């Protein structure tokens, strides 16, 4: 046996699982066909945050007068904005390389496929440096991730020029003057927010009845208003019929409530969901169960094929890096025979637009559907001292408590820094806090987080500053 564990895919699911495996004394190898850190570090979470920061600072420059400041004619150098984003990705990519060396994890560059074997499938790697290498382990974890969904039949297929996926959208040669973003999930909204901040005319097309459809409806509504204030335009409940390209741009034919309309722009971004990377891995021959484009797994990420596990995006939604890491850790600890931690840990979700959106647990609608009676608390940042001082009064904190037990069942926020603040609620839910603990917690003053406290108080009619 060459290894105890082989992990296929070095994204935030795979590489984190590899580190824990090594910490638990398992001899570990990780196979990566492209770049350590996966989409998250190289083409997703991290480089977009670098871009968004540039956009946010640039946007602030237009509001300097609000703070009593002045600067002449803010400008940006788009090439340098992109360069910075790539540098950030590069730094973290080599950071993962260091972590792999530190934990004595063998990194094999190449493309893996699986063949039948015991106690776990064999991993056959077409190596980047040439040649094929077959390795075996007691356990194989698939962490191959996902990629942008495309719909070629209606022209929703990136061509790298006029039509982009997240990948092309991250490294264009120039910022587009006008842009159509198809899909209003986190990815679509973040790019829309970024390019709007740099001055582009941006139209977002969403097939469902509201933007950010996974968020609580109140948040969706508030987000749409906030984005519209910044000049973003939306077409909601709009089905894309066809995207056609010309030399100068794209034309997107949409249908909204029976009416058709053709939108035109310089570029388009396709952000209509993602599909799992399940192809060419030899999964069919092994009898791995695949539902649409993701691998079906149990609570410990086992696939049902002896010794084979799948974690992260390839194992299905939510498609979030921290969900992949969490599954990876749990899977490896399970493999190593460690007792399950048994925490009913909810997975927070964040959208890093301006304003930011963050949530954890159930939405109000989901709680109702589940038949739970809830108490709802709300607190707007416009009544929060720190928010007023910072000039960031947009948004609110909404909390949901089980009416019978007082358990915190969901929290939904929109506003400045809420992607940092959400951890407070995530921790509270993981520890099974009730309203009593949230009420009893002392929140520092002045902070934006006081709005979290007030929201919890509001749910029980005890709000202080509203």
């Amino acid at each position: 046996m060459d290894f105890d564990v082989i992990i296929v895919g070095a994204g935030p699911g795979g590489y984190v699982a590899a580190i824990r495996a090594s910490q638990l004394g398992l001899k570990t190898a990780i196979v990566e066909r492209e770049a350590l850190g996966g989409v998250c570090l190289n083409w997703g979470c991290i480089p977009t945050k670098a871009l968004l920061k540039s956009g946010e600072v640039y946007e602030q420059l237009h509001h300097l007068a609000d703070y009593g400041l002045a600067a002449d004619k803010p400008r940006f150098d788009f090439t340098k904005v992109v360069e910075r984003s790539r540098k950030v990705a590069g730094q973290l990519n080599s950071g993962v390389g260091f972590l792999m060396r530190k934990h004595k994890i063998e990194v094999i560059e190449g493309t893996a496929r699986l063949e039948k074997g015991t106690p776990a499938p064999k991993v056959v790697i077409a190596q980047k440096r040439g040649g094929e290498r077959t390795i075996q382990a007691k356990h194989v974890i698939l962490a191959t991730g996902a990629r942008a969904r495309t719909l070629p039949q209606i022209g929703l297929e990136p061509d790298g020029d006029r039509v982009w996926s997240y990948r092309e959208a991250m490294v264009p040669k120039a910022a587009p003057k006008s842009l159509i973003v198809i899909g209003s999930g986190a990815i679509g909204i973040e790019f829309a927010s970024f390019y709007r901040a740099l001055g582009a005319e941006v139209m977002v097309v969403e097939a469902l009845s509201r933007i950010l459809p996974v968020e609580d409806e109140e948040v969706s509504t508030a987000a749409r208003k906030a984005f519209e204030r910044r000049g973003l335009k939306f077409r909601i409940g709009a089905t894309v019929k066809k995207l056609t390209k010309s030399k100068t741009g794209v034309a997107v034919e949409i249908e909204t409530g029976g009416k058709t309309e053709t939108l035109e722009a310089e570029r388009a971004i396709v952000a209509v969901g993602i599909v799992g990377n399940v192809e060419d891995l030899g999964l069919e021959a092994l009898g791995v169960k695949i539902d649409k484009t993701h691998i079906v797994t149990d609570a410990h990420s086992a696939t049902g094929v002896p010794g084979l596990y799948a974690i992260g995006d390839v194992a299905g939604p939510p498609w979030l890096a921290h969900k992949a890491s969490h599954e990876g850790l749990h899977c490896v600890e399970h493999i190593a025979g460690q007792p399950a931690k048994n925490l009913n840990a909810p997975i927070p979700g964040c959208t890093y637009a301006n304003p930011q959106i963050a949530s954890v647990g159930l939405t109000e609608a989901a709680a109702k559907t589940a038949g739970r009676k809830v108490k709802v608390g709300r607190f707007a940042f416009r009544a929060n001292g720190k928010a007023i001082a910072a000039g960031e009064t947009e948004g609110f904190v909404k909390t949901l408590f089980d009416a019978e037990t007082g358990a915190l069942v969901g929290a939904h926020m929109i506003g400045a820094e809420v992607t940092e603040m959400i951890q407070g609620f995530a921790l509270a839910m993981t520890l099974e806090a009730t309203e009593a603990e949230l009420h009893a917690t002392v929140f520092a003053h002045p902070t934006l987080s006081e709005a979290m406290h007030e929201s919890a108080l509001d749910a029980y009619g005890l709000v202080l500053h509203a």
Partner: protein
Amino acid sequence: MTDILMPALSPTMEEGTLAKWLVKAGDTVAAGDVIAEIETDKATMEVEAVDEGVVEEILVEAGTEGVKVNAPIARLSGGTEAKAPEPKPAERTPAEAPPAKAAARTEAPTKADPAPAKRQEGERIFASPLARRIAEQKGLDLSAIKGSGPHGRVIERDVKDAKPGAKPAATAAAAPAERRGETRPVQSLQQMGIPEGSYDLIPLDGMRKTVARRMTDSFRDVPHFPLTIDLEIDRLLEARGRINKMLEKDGVKVSVNDIILKACAVALKRVPEANASYSPEGIALHHHADIAMAVAVEGGLITPIIRKCETKGLAQIALETKDLAERARTRKLKPEEFQGGTFSVSNLGMFGIKSFGSIINEPQGAILSVGAGTKQPVVRGDQLAIATVMSVTMTCDHRVVDGATGARWLEAFKALIEEPLAMMV
């Protein structure tokens, strides 16, 4: 520089006692040199160096108890990386432990329904705020609920479906399998009226702790009952004499106990229902009679195993028991030599004990306690006669071996002992 790490000598080992150093700082060691002795709950094992180098520093002194697996115990210069040294006998690292099995074991309790747990009066109960709230609303006694959260914390799902009225005393016995290893907190001797200074205190070593834990668990959790029967062993003694005469030239001496072990194995094949173990999944009927024999050693006892005893001849059994007993006394047994087994035999006949009932050696279904063979008056027909009579007591786990099953086994065993020739049939 290489840190030498505390090795795991068995898959379940978490800590051990660093019994003895065989090297000191400044010594040069080569790969394969024995550098230390480690005492686990069952045995003492030698630790070999994996790398060559000079011992720079001893980090854990000899005699230190409770050294965690993978903790650095010494530093070697000249090496390249931290490595757990190769323990001579037994498995190497936790990584090589059969993971599925280990996982299954650790997970089992978490899947259990809310199970009652015993706690001492006034002991702090770890429970999540939500669990406390729900318990209060439903009128549940939190101290009666076993927590499945981290460090045994009671969390929502432990109380969600629990029914009120679960009192620890009333229900503690209902789910004993879920809470192994927790013994009732023992009151201090002072609390029980024995003044300090009036006794010498011998620290609990690994073996003593294991004996205490396993015996407490078994006696408390296994519904056991004894069955006693008298056996006449004159024919056995006579047969033994002839066998030993035959084996004299080979220097092998068969003991009465060896014949008892063999008879047990044959009887277990004849009444296979007695060769069984209870598990939550079902009753395991073992394919072979792996007979464990209790060996008293300094500081405790250990039960090395004669595997597939039914397939072995008396000469081989005699050789194996001698070897196992000797190595048990010097604590040189490998874990696989004393872990497992399907049936146990404990013999106190040599001390003149007439009869006694042993505690079941889990997960075995029964244990046989063998008393002394003594000449006694017996009634044959209406005549008084003299026979050598030996009393044996079979302690049965009632979950797998019912009274009638035990009786049938003893009947089969008695037939073999009273007519050893029957073992040939």
